[in-house]
């Protein structure tokens, strides 16, 4: 990495502080909140796909699991602190089990894609068919297709009556994203992160060096799931309802599209892609000229064809060529290979 760690942290903090101050002047905080949450979700896949080479077709499963865990725990506990923690832990544990099963089975690329897709489908189908009164966890009815409304939303820890919502909730989410971003940065700078990149590049070699590739991929997968789970819990708080759609393939598809459009192999790309496309979708809902699915599809096709590295790397290379900085040349083959991981 070009910059030193402290520079990196400083730049991140300054830029995000400015953004957190300026953005609410342009877009309503309620919409911004969900953009931030989607950014976090995009980052979760960007981490495991872009830096670990694990293409997960079911990142939405962890998102949904986080949201449902939060909702169910919040109904049963009535205070949001423990549910928030559980919403991070449950997806992480689930991902650990799933990851161990897949990675120790030496499943790679397409096969990995199928398994994650299938697991997402199973979760979706299960949750979708829990409308009956027999599906209860503690006090919480799972609700099937209709989802779970009316749970305790985020409160100041220890004080269940002090709700955090509206603008304060936006700031909580934004700060959470900054913290997650810094953690990801730290992780990628650490040996663990560099080894993960090594595994993305060549699993066999890393195994022959003595690294337990399966274990490391499992851990990375779980970290990604934990981040997605946190995003899910925040989303549950934002929407005040959770529905099986969170688990849907459509949701998984969107996450993948965010990463592609934003730029794989970068930390910023998936966040930018997620926020940008979600905002586009929001704007499109205010017109009815062209079908919105069509536009999303076209964007994806055009990006794969003409800008396969995504926006952020493309902009970075344009900027560096303008300002002539001797930054490390972004490598096209890098992203390509990452995707085939």
């Amino acid at each position, binding site marked *: 990495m070009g910059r030193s760690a402290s520079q990196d942290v400083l730049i991140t903090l300054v830029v995000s502080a400015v953004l957190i101050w300026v953005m609410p002047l342009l877009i309503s905080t309620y919409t911004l909140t969900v953009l931030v949450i989607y950014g976090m979700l995009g980052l979760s896949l960007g981490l495991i796909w872009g830096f670990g080479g694990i293409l997960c077709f079911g990142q939405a499963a962890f998102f949904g699991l986080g949201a449902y865990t939060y909702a169910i725990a919040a109904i049963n506990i009535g205070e949001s602190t423990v549910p928030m923690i559980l919403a991070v832990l449950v997806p992480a544990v689930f991902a650990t089990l799933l990851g161990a099963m897949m990675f120790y089975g030496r499943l790679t690329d397409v096969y990995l894609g199928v398994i994650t897709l299938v697991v997402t489908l199973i979760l979706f189908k299960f949750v979708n068919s829990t409308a009956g009164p027999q599906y209860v966890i503690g006090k919480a009815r799972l609700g099937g*297709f209709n989802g779970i409304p009316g749970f305790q939303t985020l409160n100041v820890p220890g004080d269940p009556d002090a709700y955090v919502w509206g603008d304060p909730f936006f700031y909580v989410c934004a700060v959470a994203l900054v913290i997650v971003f810094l953690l990801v940065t730290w992780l990628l700078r650490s040996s663990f992160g560099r080894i993960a990149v090594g595994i993305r590049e060549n699993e066999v070699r890393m195994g022959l060096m003595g690294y337990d590739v399966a274990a490391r991929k499992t851990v990375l997968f779980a970290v990604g799931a934990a981040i997605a789970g946190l995003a899910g819990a925040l989303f549950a708080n934002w929407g005040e309802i959770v529905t099986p759609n969170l688990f849907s393939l459509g949701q998984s598809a969107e996450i993948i599209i965010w990463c592609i459009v934003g730029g794989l192999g970068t930390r910023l790309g998936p966040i930018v892609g997620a926020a940008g496309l979600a905002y586009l979708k929001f704007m499109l809902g205010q017109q009815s000229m062209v079908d919105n699915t069509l536009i999303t599809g076209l964007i994806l096709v055009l990006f794969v064809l003409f800008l396969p590295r995504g926006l952020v790397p493309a902009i970075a290379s344009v900027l560096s060529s303008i300002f002539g900085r001797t930054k490390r040349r972004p490598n096209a083959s890098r992203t390509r290979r990452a995707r085939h991981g």
Partner: protein
Amino acid sequence: MSLNRRELLGGAAALGTAAMLPKAVMAAGTIQLGSILDTSGIFDAYGKPMDQAMRLAVKEINDAGGLLGKQVEVAAYDTQSDMALYSQYAQQLTRQDRVDVVHGGILSASREAIRQTMRKTKTLYFYNVQYEGGVCDRNLFATGVTPAQQVEVLVPYAMKKSGPKVHILAADYNYGQITARWIQKFVEDNGGEVVATDFFPLDVSDFGSTITKVQQTAPDLIVAPLVGGAHLSFFRQWAAAGMKDKIPLASTTMGVGNEHKVLTPEEGNGIMVAYNYSQELETAANTTFKEKWQAEYGDTTAIHELAVSTYQGIMLWAEGVRKAGSVERDAVIEALETGISIDGPAGKVTIDPQTHHATVDVHIMEFDNQGMTVIETLPQRAPIDTQAVCDLQTNPDDNTQYEIEI
């Protein structure tokens, strides 16, 4: 729950946001009506005609001089069949557009996604869709029919035509589960027996094994509250297996989104249903309504139950505003609670003050050549299911969706 603190925080937040935002340009002296419907995505077969009906109703009001001398302006959002967008646009409507009333929501999940926002921001909310019943919220008016209203009349009629043994095939979600229970109750009340009940998630489209299973239970009648495009396959596969003339079918949902126009006469004829509206209603009100629709959109085939509910919902609200002489929420609620009624395309619709649901005419109908022929009209059926659990007159702070214990 300390609502005060919440409202304080939230209120401050709303104020702060609004102050910073370029406020939506709105002409002074107009009334703002917010609409939030899926006009694209998988639910648009429901949402598009509802949107058309909403615009038709508003146009009619404006052509007649508006409300309280002001024109009604529409702020409409397409939620693209995406639940997350409901939350977002609800915030947009209430905090930025500051509308005076919101009409919309299709699925129960979408209603629950926006209901609390409406309540918190004190924005009057109309949910104009046939649904499972039981929502008890002073801020909400539900103008669609609920299961008891339909089932109470449909089941005895269908059993009389067929026999006492009933097999229920229901959509596996909130609506289907609750409706199935009501069907069971009325089957038993009428001296019948439910031999089996099966639930199907909304994406099930292969009913081969189900058709075999039904033949094993050998019922006299099938009541099928099945929902959506995938479930339509049941009616088709049922006919393809040659079962249609052997066991009669009744449904509380088939046709709500004009599904009967997709089935061929051979597949559809004879299926028994009970709704508030049918295009084939031979009343002056319906004829006029269809003429107006024809003039506006050129084609009346798209009109369905939910579109008419929406139209009636807006007319009820307008009536409430006229009576209150204001668009202010509490005044309008009080006016509506006097038991206001209007004469809509589907007959007289009256607000039930106790539940904020609607008392409507219910028509027993049979499919005939891709239309719904009215067999019998049962005037002014009250929402008895919701009435059993909800009394907003004695408990105005209630904010629950009850599951009605039968």
